[in-house]
C-alpha cells in the first residue's frame, strides 16, 4: 500500500514537472488513404481531410457551413469589384520555421492553377494573384466574382522557399516520370506536423509546438495516427475492439447497432451531397432501350410520371434505413439558392403517374435502362433496384446496370446514358457550382462536362455564365432562383435525397459532423478518461 502511494505520488510529480500536459494520442480510421500528400494534386475529400491537419487554407468553414478566418484574418472586395483583398495572419510559421507571407499565398494559388493540379477548377476565375505587402494579397478575377473566397476552403498554402528548394514547385504532371518531393513530405502551417507515413498503413502526426493558434484552439490531441482500413466490417471491428478511437465512413447498416453500444458515441449530420436521377431529355431516341425512333423522356409528362412514381419516404425507410434526407431539389439545405419550397417533394401517386404516361402515348409503358455506380454513394445499387421497382408499378420496365464509378463516370462524361443515378457535392456552397457542371449545356465554353441529360437552353446558359461576374448580390441571387425555377420545371434531374454522415468514436471524444466530412482535430475536445 505504502509502495503504491509512493509510486503514484512520484508519478504525479513527474506529470507536474511536465507542465501537466498529458500526451493524448488519437487513432483515426477511414476507408481509404490519401493518394498523395501533395496538397494540390487531387480534388478529393479523403486527401483534403488529412491535409487539413498539416496544411492550412486562407479560410475554412465551420460545421454550419459559414466561412471563418484561418490564414487570412479578413477579406473584402476592393474598389475594383474584380479584385479581392486578403489580409493575412501575422506571425505564422511553416513547420520548417520559415515565416508565412503574402509571397507564399501567391505561389500557392499559382501552383494550384498549374497543369497537374486537380483543384484548378475552383480557381477558374482567377486571373492573377499579387502580393501588395508582406501580409496583403490581391486576387484579380475574370470579372467581379462575389463568391471567390468560397472556393478557397480546400486550397492549401505551401512555402515557396521550401517547394523551390525541394523541387516541388509544380504539382506532378501525370505524364512526368519523376517523383515530386511533396508527394510524401509535408511542410504546412497547420497544428500537426508529419512524423511518418506508410501508404495504406499509417500516417503519424505530432502536435506543432510553434502553432499560431495555441491558446485559441483546444489542441488537446498531441499525437494523431491516421489508419486507413478498407474493409467496412474490419473498420467497425477495430472500433469495437478498441484499436481505433474515431472512425469515419461508417456503413449505414451498422449505424443502428453501433448506437446501441454504451462505449461508443455516434454523431450524425447532413452531408454536402445530393443523390438524384439524370434523364436523357435531349436525345431523339433512347440509347439503351428496345423502343426505337422515340424518346419518351423528352416528354415532360413522362418525366412528371417518374417523379410521381418514386416513393422517397419508402426509399429512406427501407433502402437507406432512415439515414437520408429525402428532397425534391439537387442542392443540400446550406447551399446558397436552396429553398424549402423547392425541396418539398410530392407523395407517391402511381395512379396519376399512369394517367400521365397514357396521356403521353405510353399506356403500356416502355423499357428503360438505369445505369448506376455500385461503389460510390451510400447504397447506390440498392437505391437503383428500388427505383426499378417503383417504375415497374407504373409500367416502365427498368433494367438496372450497376458498375464501378470508374466506368459510370466515363459514361456520364460521354453522355452515353438515358437514365442514371448520380451524386453531386457543392464545395463552394453556392448554386453556381451545380449549374456550371450539371445544368449548363454540355461542353460549351468549358462548362457542363457532367451534364449528360442533353438539356440545353441558351437563355439558361447565359444566366449561368452571368453568375460568375455579377457584382450585385441581390441580382445574382435572383438569377439563381430563375435558373432553379427552370431546373425544377423541366425535371431533367429527379432528386432523391441528401446523404447523411456518421462519425463513430469512443465516448470521450465528441467530433461534430461537418457537411464536407471534414474534421479539424485541433478543435476536438476530449472528455475525462
Amino acid at each position, binding site marked *: 500500500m505504502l509502495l503504491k502511494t509512493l509510486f503514484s505520488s512520484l508519478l504525479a510529480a513527474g506529470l507536474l514537472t511536465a507542465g501537466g500536459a498529458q500526451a493524448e494520442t488519437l487513432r483515426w480510421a477511414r476507408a481509404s488513404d490519401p493518394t498523395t500528400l501533395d496538397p494540390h494534386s487531387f480534388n478529393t475529400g479523403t486527401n483534403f481531410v488529412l491535409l487539413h491537419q498539416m496544411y492550412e487554407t486562407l479560410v475554412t468553414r465551420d460545421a454550419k457551413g459559414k466561412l471563418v478566418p484561418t490564414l487570412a484574418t479578413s477579406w473584402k472586395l476592393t474598389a475594383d469589384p474584380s479584385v479581392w483583398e486578403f489580409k493575412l495572419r501575422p506571425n505564422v510559421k511553416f513547420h520548417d520555421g520559415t515565416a508565412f507571407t503574402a509571397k507564399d499565398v501567391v505561389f500557392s494559388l499559382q501552383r494550384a492553377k498549374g497543369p497537374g493540379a486537380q483543384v484548378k477548377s475552383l480557381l477558374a476565375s482567377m486571373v492573377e494573384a499579387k502580393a501588395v505587402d508582406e501580409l496583403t494579397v490581391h486576387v484579380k478575377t475574370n470579372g467581379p466574382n462575389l463568391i471567390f473566397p468560397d472556393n478557397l476552403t480546400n486550397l492549401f498554402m505551401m512555402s515557396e522557399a521550401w517547394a523551390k528548394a525541394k523541387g516541388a514547385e509544380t504539382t506532378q504532371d501525370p505524364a512526368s516520370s*519523376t517523383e515530386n518531393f511533396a508527394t510524401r513530405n509535408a511542410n504546412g502551417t497547420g497544428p500537426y506536423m508529419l512524423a511518418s507515413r506508410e501508404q495504406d498503413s499509417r500516417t503519424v502526426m505530432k502536435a506543432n509546438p510553434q502553432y499560431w493558434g495555441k491558446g485559441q484552439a483546444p489542441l488537446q490531441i498531441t499525437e494523431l495516427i491516421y489508419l486507413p482500413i478498407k*474493409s467496412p466490417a474490419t473498420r467497425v*471491428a477495430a472500433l469495437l475492439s478498441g*484499436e481505433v478511437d474515431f472512425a469515419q465512413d461508417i456503413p449505414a447498416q451498422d449505424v443502428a447497432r453501433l448506437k446501441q453500444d454504451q462505449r461508443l458515441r455516434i454523431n450524425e449530420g447532413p452531408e454536402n451531397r445530393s443523390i438524384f436521377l439524370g434523364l436523357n431529355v435531349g436525345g431523339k431516341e433512347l440509347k439503351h432501350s428496345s423502343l426505337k425512333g422515340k424518346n419518351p423522356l423528352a416528354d415532360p409528362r413522362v418525366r412528371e410520371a417518374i417523379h410521381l412514381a418514386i416513393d422517397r419516404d419508402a426509399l429512406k425507410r427501407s433502402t437507406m434505413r432512415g439515414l437520408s434526407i429525402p428532397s425534391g431539389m439537387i442542392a443540400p439545405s446550406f447551399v446558397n439558392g436552396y429553398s424549402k419550397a423547392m425541396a418539398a417533394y410530392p407523395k407517391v401517386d402511381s395512379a396519376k403517374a399512369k394517367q400521365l404516361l397514357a396521356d403521353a402515348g405510353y399506356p403500356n409503358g416502355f423499357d428503360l435502362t438505369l445505369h448506376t455506380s455500385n461503389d460510390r454513394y451510400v447504397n447506390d445499387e440498392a437505391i437503383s433496384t428500388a427505383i426499378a421497382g417503383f417504375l415497374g408499378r407504373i409500367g416502365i420496365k427498368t433494367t438496372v446496370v450497376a458498375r464501378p464509378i470508374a466506368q459510370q463516370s466515363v459514361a456520364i*462524361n460521354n453522355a452515353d446514358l438515358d437514365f442514371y443515378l448520380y451524386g453531386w457535392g457543392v464545395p463552394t456552397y453556392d448554386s453556381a457550382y451545380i449549374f456550371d457542371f450539371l445544368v449548363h449545356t454540355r461542353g460549351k465554353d468549358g462548362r457542363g462536362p457532367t451534364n449528360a441529360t442533353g438539356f440545353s437552353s441558351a437563355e439558361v446558359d447565359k444566366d449561368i455564365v452571368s453568375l460568375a461576374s455579377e457584382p450585385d448580390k441581390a441580382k445574382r441571387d435572383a438569377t439563381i432562383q430563375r435558373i432553379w425555377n427552370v431546373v425544377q420545371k423541366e425535371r431533367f434531374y429527379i432528386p432523391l435525397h441528401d446523404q447523411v454522415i456518421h462519425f463513430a468514436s469512443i465516448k470521450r471524444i465528441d467530433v461534430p459532423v461537418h457537411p464536407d466530412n471534414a474534421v479539424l482535430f485541433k478543435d476536438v475536445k476530449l472528455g475525462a478518461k
Partner: protein
Amino acid sequence: MLAYLLRRLGQSALVLLAVSLIAFMVFRHIGDPTISLLGEDATLEERAALTRELGFDQPVPLQYLHYVGKVVQGDLGISYRLKRPVSEVIAERLPATLELSLIASLGALAIGLVLGVYTALRSEGWLSRAVMTVSLVGVSLPTFLIGIGLIYLFAVELRWLPSFGRGTTVKVGGWETGLLTASGWSAIILPAITLGFYNMTLIMRLVRAEMLEVLRSDYIRFGRARGLREKDLYFGHALRNTLIPVITIAGLQIGTLIAFSIVTETVFQWPGVGLLFISSIQGVDVPLISAYLMFIALLYVVINLLVDFLYLAVDPRLRRR
C-alpha cells in the same frame, strides 16, 4: 538439354508478352484514367488535352508497342494515383505479401501434415471425423467470411489479436519485416490463418489420402510382419513416401497464395501488393495494374521454370534428350 532449356525460356517470354497484351487490352474497359486523374469536375477540354498527353488517342497497337518498349527498358512508369514510380511502390509493398504468404504456406504445410497423418492413422476416431467435417466447412466458406469471423472472435470478443494492419516493422537491409517484433507476429496470425486455411485442408486431405494408400501397400505389411516398431513404420517409411506429391503441390501453391492474397489483404488491411492492386483498380491506375499483372505472370513463369529444372535434375531421361 540446352535446347530444352532455351525452348522453355522462349515459351516463358511468350507467356509474359501475352499477359502484357491482355493486361493492356483490359485497361480499355476498366474506366477512363483521365477522370481519376483530373477529378469529376474537369472540363471536357482538359480531359481531351490529357488524353492526348498520355497518348490514349493513338491506335491501341501503337500504345502497346510504346508500353512494351518502356517495360523492356525497365521503366514501369509513374503511378497515376500515388504519383510515385511503380517499381518503387511494388518493391516497397512486396515484403508484406511475401512474409504473409510464407507464414501462411509454412503453417498450412505443418498443420496440414500433422492433421493429415493423424486423421490417416486414427481414421475412425471422433477427433478425426470432427477435423474432416470442419475442413469441409472451411473449404466451402469464402475467404473474407473466414477473415471477418476470426476478427470478431479474436479481436472484438477476446481482444487477443489485432484486427488489422501489420504491427510494428523494422528495417533489415532494404527489407521491411514484421517478423522480428512481437506486435508483428500477433498481427500476422489471423491473416495467415485466413490465407492458408484452404491450402491447409488441401494438404491435410492429400496427406491423409496418400498415407492411407501407402499404409495399405505391401512393404508396410511386410515391415509390420518383420516386427518393425509402429513409430518407425509410420514416420520412417510411410510418411516419407507420402511427402513427394505433397511437396510438389505445396511448392506450386506458394505462387497461388501470393497472387490470391488480394482478399485477405483487403480484409485485414495488410499493406501488401494485393491491397495495392485493389486500390489501383478503383483508381484506374493503369501503370500499376499492368505492372502487378506482369509481376504475377513472371512469378508463375519462374516457379514453373524452377519446377521444370527440378524435374530435369530428378529424371535422367529428360537430360538425355
